[in-house]
């Protein structure tokens, strides 16, 4: 047996260290479809509790939408369950290309290629289009999958301070001798819900002859007047060279992702992106459902409009209640608590009140930046929001943090 006692002891010790460091992640079992009202078994083996979900990326409330589920059933019947192939051997159906075309039209780009996930899109994109003669300059808070993709690429790497355009400009100036420069950012940053300054980034990119790549996973489907994403919100439609995004959040929430942008960059991914070449095709059932999702959000902005209303209402009411909230317009609403234990304790108490939220702390966010991240959905009704605001207020009073800012909370609870 090659799995020696030495190996077992090593891994047991590692796992213990993770647990003792407060970083052990435990799954919570949901006994219902994903949605606003979910039945959650937590802690393990306890009877499922009915709670209102405020921690899913179900921004448009389409995860269990009847039309989407219906489309999945139809897709399953019409095109089967699996393809047993990568895309380029015998894993591409008409509906795969149809979905790619619909996404191209919706995002107003030149072409699109599907990946099994956006993690895979980010993992494969850079290596497929850049070489050691090029430089990638990324915002320091880009998603982990973007960082992983950059690591897999032989191009030079540098970063700029988060959303600091002066710093980005100095970096672009430093690398003017590189063959290609690529500025890399998230459209919306997942922990604070803040939005990249894509208008300024595009201006700098024009000035310094750089390409722009945006991971728009927390934006596609609802940011901008027609929900096209951060590029619409910032008024730069058609100026982003590559957008990566996910079908696993607002767009139905199952799985899958894509690279959408300049047709040559997309074609390079089709020829060279390893997660595309060496990973199974997206299953027909998900492609069929995602295709219906793109139809739904192309036909009406009703759902993104409702999400916008919910976001404004919740942010205003929570601010009035005395919570310290990062300002913004995004349905990610960070309730700042600064202290890791306070964030965990409040999230636990809120769960008992029927509100499902999660505390985030170091290393997921910077030290001293612990918070509860609330995520709103178009499926939330005003009564859901009011229940959450009432529960937050009750628990906020318990911990005496209402009306208190960063310094006061840190003085009471420490960092």
């Amino acid at each position, binding site marked *: 047996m090659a799995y020696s006692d030495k190996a077992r002891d090593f891994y047991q010790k590692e796992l213990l260290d993770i647990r003792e460091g407060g970083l052990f992640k435990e799954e919570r079992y949901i006994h219902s479809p994903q949605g606003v009202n979910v039945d959650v078994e937590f802690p393990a083996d306890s009877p499922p509790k009915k709670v209102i979900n405020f921690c899913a990326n179900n921004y448009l409330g389409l995860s269990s939408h009847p039309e989407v589920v219906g489309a999945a059933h139809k897709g399953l019947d019409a095109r089967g369950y699996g393809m047993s192939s990568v895309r380029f051997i015998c894993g591409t159906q008409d509906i795969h290309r149809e979905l790619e075309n619909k996404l191209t039209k919706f995002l107003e780009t030149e072409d699109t290629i599907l990946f099994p996930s956006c993690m895979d899109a980010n993992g494969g994109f850079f290596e497929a289009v850049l070489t050691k003669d090029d430089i990638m300059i*990324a915002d*320091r808070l880009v998603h982990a999958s973007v*960082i992983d993709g950059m690591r897999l690429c032989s191009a*030079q*790497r*540098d*970063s700029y*301070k988060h959303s600091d355009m002066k710093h980005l400009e100095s970096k672009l100036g*430093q690398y003017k001798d590189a063959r290609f420069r690529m500025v890399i950012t998230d459209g919306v940053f997942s922990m604070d819900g803040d939005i990249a300054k894509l208008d300024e980034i595009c201006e700098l990119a024009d000035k310094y002859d750089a390409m722009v790549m945006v991971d728009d996973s927390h934006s596609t489907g609802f940011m901008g007047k027609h929900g096209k994403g951060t590029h619409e919100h910032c008024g730069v439609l058609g100026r982003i060279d590559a957008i990566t995004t996910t079908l696993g959040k607002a767009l139905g929430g199952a799985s899958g992702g894509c690279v959408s942008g300049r047709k040559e960059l997309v074609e390079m991914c089709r020829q060279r992106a390893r997660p595309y070449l060496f990973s199974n095709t997206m299953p027909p059932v998900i492609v069929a459902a995602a295709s219906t999702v793109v139809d739904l959000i192309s036909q009406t902005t009703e759902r993104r409009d409702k999400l916008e209303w919910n976001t404004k209402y919740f942010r205003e009411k929570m601010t009035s209640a005395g919570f310290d909230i990062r300002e913004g317009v995004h349905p990610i609403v960070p309730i700042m608590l600064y202290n890791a234990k306070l964030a965990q304790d409040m999230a636990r108490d809120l769960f008992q009140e029927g509100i499902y939220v999660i505390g985030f702390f170091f290393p997921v966010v910077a030290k001293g930046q612990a918070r509860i991240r609330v995520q709103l959905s178009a499926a939330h009704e005003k009564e859901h929001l009011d229940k959450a605001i009432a529960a937050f207020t009750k628990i906020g009073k318990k911990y005496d943090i209402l009306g208190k800012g960063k310094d006061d909370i840190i003085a009471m609870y420490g960092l």
Partner: protein
Amino acid sequence: MGMKELIIDYVKDEYLEEGDETEINEGTPLISSGIVDSFSMVSLKMFLEKTYNISIPDERATTEAFDSVNGIISLVKEFAPGAE
């Protein structure tokens, strides 16, 4: 300004956000502590090469070598023996 002060100033300016009062001295862990992200180490390398007119081979510009100002000074002195 000596090499130590020059490098500390560069690190503060390049890597700390405005208003961040984190103390950085010659022994402060830079990369392992998260102050310097391994991606932008390349700009620190470029700064050293330009300032001291040297060329540091990529295989020597490791995260270990760049993890403290002391480590960086040793590396620079190896390629620019007269630098102070």
